[in-house]
């Protein structure tokens, strides 16, 4: 075949051309994917600096213990506590983007030649050169008869023929479902959009500290914006059986003191204005406790974080729904632990009051409260006022929507190109050594199943043999 189809002209290697070739070879994306997988695995094994600790990462690092902790020194020295924001990781993403651009350009070229007005030429043999050895079909017919017979057989197989001008021998490209090649272009384009979206979201986005407002409380939104957000109320609707339906917050967007929009946010359904989103990521109890001993004297209570106990009522904070704040009764030398279960749609939200013994090793449930009420134990009595506050998160992630849509489009395109396999084969008919004619068949290397090529070759071989 090499004597029939002109080889690509030898050119002086140019830097851009060399870079392009390096990015185009299949080894490059494989190596990059391996690096990404390694980075993701590291990010899973080594705890990453959480967003709330970004203002003082050294304090967070100092608190780490265990195999790779501060004492080990290796992980902090390598900066593995912040893999996803490391320079190398970002460089890796940029390289992935470049590879996607190169592959998309190649895919566009291929799809355009297969379906557009620009048809195949002798120079486009470079597409196919260097690929696995072609299949060879000997034929005892003359080259002209073989070409004619092949045309009939391929037409029976539903394939379109496109001649390749400028080649000495009879050469053509047979294809079927070539329009699906554009799906591959869509895959690369969508992945590029997703990558760009992720980079934009992580570079330009911001997020406020989680906020637990009381009804009527307001807060400025974002940086240098006139917008203010106010919580009107938190709704915890229950059905007649007491099961909780969607916990939701009524909020108002304000410009200065002027309300501009009211909205309701609940889990998975944020309120968005000018790209800024307000999400309700949960809700926590707002607890106030007071107590009396057997003689009716007020108990001295000391909440976690307080230096001294005070007689009377004390407020207990739940920074997160999973938190289990402690309450100390100094005169009785007792510890109580409070925990909260939102209960989702299965029941009512519940507050548990547990008595801790033996340094916390034994835990005895004293009371389960679904609303304000009292708890009595060991001659003591507690009155618990129970209310709830939402946890609101305000953020601005300009690229996330593009990233998600890009990923969905990429997946749909991958599924399409997997389900509907485009078929394209380069066929050259020329004189053979032992037979009058030899047919060479070459298909592009592909990640999809190519058993169709073997079946097509068998069919053509049988078809040519029938005419012998």
């Amino acid at each position, binding site marked *: 075949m090499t004597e029939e189809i002109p080889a690509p002209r030898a050119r002086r290697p140019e830097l851009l051309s060399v870079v392009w070739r390096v990015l185009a070879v299949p080894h490059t994306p494989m190596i990059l994917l391996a690096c990404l997988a390694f980075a*993701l695995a590291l990010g899973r094994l080594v705890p990453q600096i959480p967003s709330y600790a970004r203002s003082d990462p050294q304090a967070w690092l100092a608190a780490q213990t265990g195999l790779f902790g501060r004492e080990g020194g290796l992980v902090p020295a390598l900066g593995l506590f912040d893999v996803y924001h490391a320079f190398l990781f970002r460089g890796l993403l940029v390289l992935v983007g470049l590879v996607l651009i190169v592959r998309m350009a190649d895919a566009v070229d291929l799809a355009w030649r297969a379906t557009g007005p620009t048809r195949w030429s002798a120079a486009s043999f470079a597409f196919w050169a260097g690929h696995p050895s072609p299949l060879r079909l000997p034929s005892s017919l003359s080259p002209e008869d073989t070409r004619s017979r092949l045309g009939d057989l391929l037409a029976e197989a539903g394939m379109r023929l496109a001649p390749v001008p400028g080649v000495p021998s009879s050469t053509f490209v047979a294809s079927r479902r070539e329009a699906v090649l554009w799906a591959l272009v869509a895959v690369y384009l969508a992945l590029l959009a997703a990558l760009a979206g992720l980079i934009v979201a992580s570079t330009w986005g911001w997020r406020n500290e989680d906020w637990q407002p009381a009804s009527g409380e307001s807060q400025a939104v974002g940086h240098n914006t006139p917008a203010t957000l106010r919580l009107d109320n938190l709704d915890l609707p229950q059905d007649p059986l007491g099961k909780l339906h969607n916990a939701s917050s009524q909020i108002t967007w304000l410009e200065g003191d002027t309300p501009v929009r009211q909205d309701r946010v609940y889990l998975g359904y944020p309120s968005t204005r000018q790209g800024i989103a307000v999400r309700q990521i949960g809700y926590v109890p707002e607890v106030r406790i007071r107590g009396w001993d057997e003689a009716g004297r007020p108990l001295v209570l000391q909440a976690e974080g307080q230096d001294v106990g005070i007689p009377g009522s004390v407020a207990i904070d739940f920074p997160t729904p999973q938190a289990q704040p402690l309450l100390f009764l100094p005169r009785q030398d007792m510890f109580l632990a409070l925990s909260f279960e939102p209960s989702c749609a299965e029941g009512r939200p519940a507050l548990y009051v547990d008595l801790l013994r033996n340094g916390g090793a034994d835990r005895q449930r004293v009371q389960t409260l679904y609303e304000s009420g009292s708890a009595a134990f060991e001659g003591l009595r507690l009155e618990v006022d129970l209310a709830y506050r939402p946890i609101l998160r305000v953020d601005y992630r300009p690229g996330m929507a593009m990233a*998600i849509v890009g990923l969905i489009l990429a997946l749909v395109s991958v599924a399409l190109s997997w389900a509907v396999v485009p078929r394209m084969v380069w066929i050259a008919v020329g004189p053979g050594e032992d037979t009058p004619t030899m047919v060479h068949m070459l298909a592009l290397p*592909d*990640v999809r199943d190519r058993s169709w090529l073997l079946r097509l070759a068998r069919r053509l071989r049988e078809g040519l043999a029938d005419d012998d």
Partner: protein
Amino acid sequence: MTIDAGLALGASALLLLAAVAQGILLSSTRDRSAGFRDCPPWWGRIVLGARLGAAFLVAAALVSEAVSQGTWTPFDLMGDISQIALSLGLATLITHLALIGLNALDRAGRGLPRWVTPTELATDAGPAADLSSLALIVLAVAIAPGAPPVTCAQRVAPVALQWALFLLGGGSTLLAGSAGLMRTVGDLTPRFGLDLAIGQPDLDSLLRQAAALSLIAVGGGLIAGAYWSWRTLGTAGSGDPREGWMAVTWLIEAMSLLAWRLQKRPSGWAAALALFAAAIAIGALLAVAGLRTALWT
């Protein structure tokens, strides 16, 4: 022993029987041109019957476990390691049985969708797939549940969809890994004077199809998870370690598919990477979730 553990062990015994019968079939079928059809038909029936029975018993074990817990929702699949192992075993079996069904349809000369490749894959990757399912079920019986409870934000349709896709993708990954294992064994055994006569074109077909299905299903699961995390938390991921490990699985499966573009030993690389991806997937869904805790405490 609980009822569900007994059912799972029964499924394990059937899978062992299927693997042994399939092994005997493979060793007796040295001429690939003769293939499965020239073997005594009752061997094939034993293999098929054992797999069907195992699939039924695994499904029954899941139902029994749900009944014994009093309540059951699809969300339990995320929180209970034994549930995950049983589900993954069932996903593998169902995928495998579906491929056997396609093969049977092909043999019967009925019409197949054009894009489905008729293949003998059900015979060649059989023992490895059966042994993978067997190992998962043994794990399910042996490992105590220990995953964190499901939070409110996870009790929603997108997360249920994410886990359904993860289980489908996990089953496909295991099948691709099984084909990769058999392919690797087929490549290695001639060096030791053995010839298992494994039909490589069929295995390659299984390797490609199962890996592609895995790529789509796991990718779909990752996207569903990312979408819901973005809606609820405003982040690209929920922080669930199993989700992160499935992303690693997805990347390695993508490498396995890209390996077919290599000029030197493409199928060998694809097989090895598919095998590696299957190992990561099992670890991701079952055991590795606790690895970081073990390292850091």
